[in-house]
């Protein structure tokens, strides 16, 4: 009986490790979440030098793309962005409306640990947050054992808010291609 119990524990642990990785939401599903009425135009934000530098400051490393794809309907924008947790990129989606995060989700998690950030108890903390200077307007509680994933999520939230600001600033750099 004790061996059965040990085996069950080992299986649960193995499942916990491998259960962290996964694809939880497709881009299409995220768009449907962001724009339930399906009215959103796909656009590109082309980054100038200053914007790339600002993005690099938020991420604390170079931002290696010249344009960022997003979807927009009025004052509502949706962004799918990647940031490395420990070694692998985490794909996250952020919906921003009126300068505040309306939705925040983990689309794909590729690390072996730290995947707890995908659960609503964590992502709900971002709702309503805005950019206050260079920081988020509210605190986001961390998760033990998921420090780097939490840090990546905070960076993505700030980046999405920053990009939203740039888009709203007279459509600077906005393009359909």
């Amino acid at each position, binding site marked *: 009986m004790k061996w059965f119990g040990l085996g069950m524990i080992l299986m649960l642990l193995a499942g916990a490790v491998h259960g962290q990785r996964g*694809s939880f939401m*497709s*881009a299409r599903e995220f768009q449907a979440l962001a724009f339930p009425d399906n009215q959103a135009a796909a656009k590109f934000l082309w980054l100038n030098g200053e914007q790339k530098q600002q993005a690099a400051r938020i991420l604390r490393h170079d931002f290696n793309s*010249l*344009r960022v*794809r997003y979807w927009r309907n009025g004052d509502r924008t949706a962004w*799918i962005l990647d940031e490395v947790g420990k070694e692998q990129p985490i794909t996250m989606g952020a919906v921003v409306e009126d300068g505040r995060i309306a939705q925040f989700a983990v689309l794909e998690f590729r690390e072996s640990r730290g995947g707890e950030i995908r659960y609503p108890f964590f992502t709900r903390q971002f709702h309503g947050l805005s950019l206050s200077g260079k920081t988020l307007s509210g605190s986001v509680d961390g998760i033990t054992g998921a420090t780097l994933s939490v840090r990546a999520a905070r960076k993505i939230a700030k980046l999405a808010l920053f990009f939203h600001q740039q888009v709203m600033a007279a459509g600077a750099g906005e393009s*359909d291609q």
Partner: protein
Amino acid sequence: MKAINKPSGSKIRLAFWRWHRRVGLVAALFVLLLAVTGILLNHTAALRLDRGKLSPQWLEVFYGLDSPVMVSYRLEDSWFSQVAGEAIYQEAELIFNCQGPLVGALVYGRFRVLACEQQLVVLTSDGSQVVERLSASHGLPAPVRGLAPCDNQICLRGDAGLHRLDLAALTWTPVSENPADLAWSTPVATPEDLRRRLGEIHLGQTISWERLLLDMHSGRILGSWGVWLMDLMAILFLLLAVTGVAMWSMGRRKRVRAGGGKA
């Protein structure tokens, strides 16, 4: 002549001394190696040993590393090569690291598009900068196995079948028929001069002097049996310490006895 019977304590002490000397001789070289590498490792940052990389010649000497695997595509006048299954170079300039093997490259309007198995990367018209990266999170039907222009769009071939990509709208439309006249992107042989340059660049980025010192210090430079050798040396060092202390202790007792009880 009467044989002199040495006291047993002296015999034991002599035996210790002999083994201490033998073990010491054997271990001396490793003590030197560990001392030198240990001191250098203690000052890695100051000596910038973590920054400096071994040249390809030293890599071949210490690690037996050969020229890495390369895959190249030619787009107009530019060469795009993937080295060791990761780094993507335009000519000899590193552009980015790709997720998966490079499987295609084409010109698409004012962009260059490169496909790796798990990622599609859009580059500027001169190929020098990344415009955008697309992965399965964006709907890419990975793994991708081939890339071809089709009807002013991009066709991708993969395990999930054939898809047509509208890059602007980011739609991936399954294509049921397999058009026979698609010009699938195919790799070409990497020119020798470029191969040599990329080999030097890539190997030169792999191992630092710090890494080499760590491998020497641990014995891993000789592979797994090098680690066992270092473990054996550690046991010999323990023997040296034990025999050394034993000899000191015995000599002390002898001095005490000879001195009439005074230490």
